[in-house]
């Protein structure tokens, strides 16, 4: 293996030269793990994530990650990830759909333990009926876990966000896990151009000495008793401690904002700000919305796109400010229930402006024309200055 060099996140993300590669999303994700200087990868394969599970095994064989094994199932994997991270290791894992729900008991504990691990959620349907098709409903299950959630639009986002996730999560004042969510198949199995820094560069090692909680080291005082689980001892502490603990997790999300601004360019990306018709979307829906926006503008319609890079922390101030002047707001989504529309509607006023759609799900494709039809339908009636 080539001699490797540890560098700062800023160098890896912004300064190192990049080479174009033609990769599917799963390969792009593995390339990020290769450069993340990860200590432990416990993982269990599940469609559409299976290939990255396999590729992480190859990375271990190549000496790019410290330890790797396939767990018995996702609950095992997510508990193992928790254990490794509690011991002060940098951890990566990935899963999809039903695997997310199987591991949820452990996943929901990660933030409370203040673990800066990164998990890629490669979204697919989870049921109703059972299927393996693309669907972003999985995000709805993750919203209140205390994880930060980044939503990748394409393979380049997936690569960059995975490295950004470590750099942000490991800040001492943040130190909560990151879910890097990507729409299964649309990104995981689609080949596109991705720009990568050299693979002899990697992030510096994670330093648990600056963590806001002590790493679990049974040999060192005072840690032997430092991480007693509150639920076990909850009769002996004030309920205020439990409540304050939860508040602290969500406070950490707010502290992450300045690092998201610095390393990701902000919680949102806006195209054609100030447009009369604004599309608000994330992930693959943002990609389809982007194409629809350009088609609509070619027809003379005043349309813009507000892409949400992060779902947690939710960019409520950004959305409130950037939607203020919009006369029509569309929120296209790849799920039936519209978790993003609910999130947006709870943060803005004048709801009559909002068309909470279009939505497709369970593997259906949201062609840009579908969004464009809605833009055309809404523009004459509600969306232009000349409209009655």
């Amino acid at each position, binding site marked *: 293996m080539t001699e490797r060099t540890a560098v700062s996140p800023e160098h890896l993300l912004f300064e190192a030269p990049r080479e174009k590669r033609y990769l599917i999303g799963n390969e792009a994700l593995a390339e990020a793990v290769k450069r993340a200087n990860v200590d432990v990868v416990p993982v269990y394969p599940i469609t559409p994530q299976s290939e990255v599970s396999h590729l992480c095994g190859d990375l271990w064989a190549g000496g790019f990650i410290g330890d790797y094994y396939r767990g018995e199932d996702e609950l095992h994997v997510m508990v193992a990830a928790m254990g490794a991270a509690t011991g002060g290791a940098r951890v990566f894992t990935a899963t999809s759909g039903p695997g997310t729900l199987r591991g949820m008991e452990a996943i929901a504990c990660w933030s409370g333990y*203040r673990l800066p691990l990164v998990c890629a959620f490669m979204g697919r349907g989870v049921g109703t009926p059972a299927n393996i098709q693309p669907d972003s409903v999985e995000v709805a299950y993750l919203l209140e876990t205390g994880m930060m959630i980044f939503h990748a639009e394409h393979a380049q986002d997936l690569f960059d966000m995975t490295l950004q996730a470590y750099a942000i999560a490991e*800040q*001492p*004042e943040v*130190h909560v896990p990151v879910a890097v969510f990507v729409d299964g198949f649309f990104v995981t199995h689609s080949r596109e151009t991705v720009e990568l820094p050299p693979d002899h560069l990697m992030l510096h090692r994670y330093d648990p000495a*600056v*963590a*806001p*909680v*002590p790493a679990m080291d049974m040999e*060192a*005082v*005072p840690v032997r*008793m*430092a*991480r*007693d689980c*509150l639920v076990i*001892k*909850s*009769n*002996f*502490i*004030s309920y*205020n*401690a439990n*409540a*304050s*603990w939860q*508040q*602290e997790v*969500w*406070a*950490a999300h*707010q*502290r992450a*904002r*300045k690092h998201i601004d610095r390393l990701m360019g902000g919680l949102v990306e806006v195209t054609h700000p100030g447009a009369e018709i604004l599309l608000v979307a994330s992930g693959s829906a943002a990609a389809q919305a982007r194409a629809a926006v350009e088609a609509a503008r070619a027809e003379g319609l005043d349309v813009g796109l507000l892409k949400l890079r992060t779902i947690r922390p939710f*960019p409520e*101030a*950004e959305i409130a*400010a950037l939607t203020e002047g919009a006369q029509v707001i569309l929120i296209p989504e790849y799920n039936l229930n519209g978790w993003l529309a609910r999130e947006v509607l709870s943060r803005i006023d004048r709801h009559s402006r909002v068309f909470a759609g279009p939505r497709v799900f369970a593997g259906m494709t949201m062609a840009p024309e579908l969004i464009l039809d809605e833009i055309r339908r809404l523009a004459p009636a509600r969306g232009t200055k000349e409209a009655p």
Partner: protein
Amino acid sequence: MNATPSPYRVRPGPEAFLAPAAATRGVVLPEPGQGLVEGLPVPEDDALEAIAQKLVAARNPTLFPGPQILWARSPRGLAKAAALLELAAAVPGLRLIPMPDYRPKYPRIHPDREINPNHPNLTIWHNEIDVCLFAGVHCHYANIALKIIRASTPCYTIALCGERGHEDAMITLRDADAATIGRLTRAVERARKGAHHD
């Protein structure tokens, strides 16, 4: 989107049955070279002076050294511990009550001898502490304790944080090492003489 300081002020309580985390009310941690005084960023020197004034005027000032001080083995930790002892000697009547670990204490805590992040208010109440200093407490546990104290006691809280600081303290430093604490000791000595740093 956080360009203007939050109107929320981090002041002594009792504030509420369940106080908010100051970060969720828009209070932002200080940048390098700054501290926070009641939620507002100020130059570090100003924060040091404000801490010194609070300590000198206190009726029952108390230092809570945490595990990073009490169990320190690194040269950095040992130097910080020594600096804290110098500070303790400079502040009239300063008490030391340790936070040796973070485990919930049962069947009961001994509030005269220790403080615990899961119920720090018991130690504040029992000892009638009006100004307290946190040092060497891991940030997560310090934040929990600071918020509970603000929620349920009138104690003025100060954090000498070695990392990024604490929004939930009424005054916080960041990157506070032995040298910073030494400067605080000098500020206390000046305050005792009635002199201010200029």
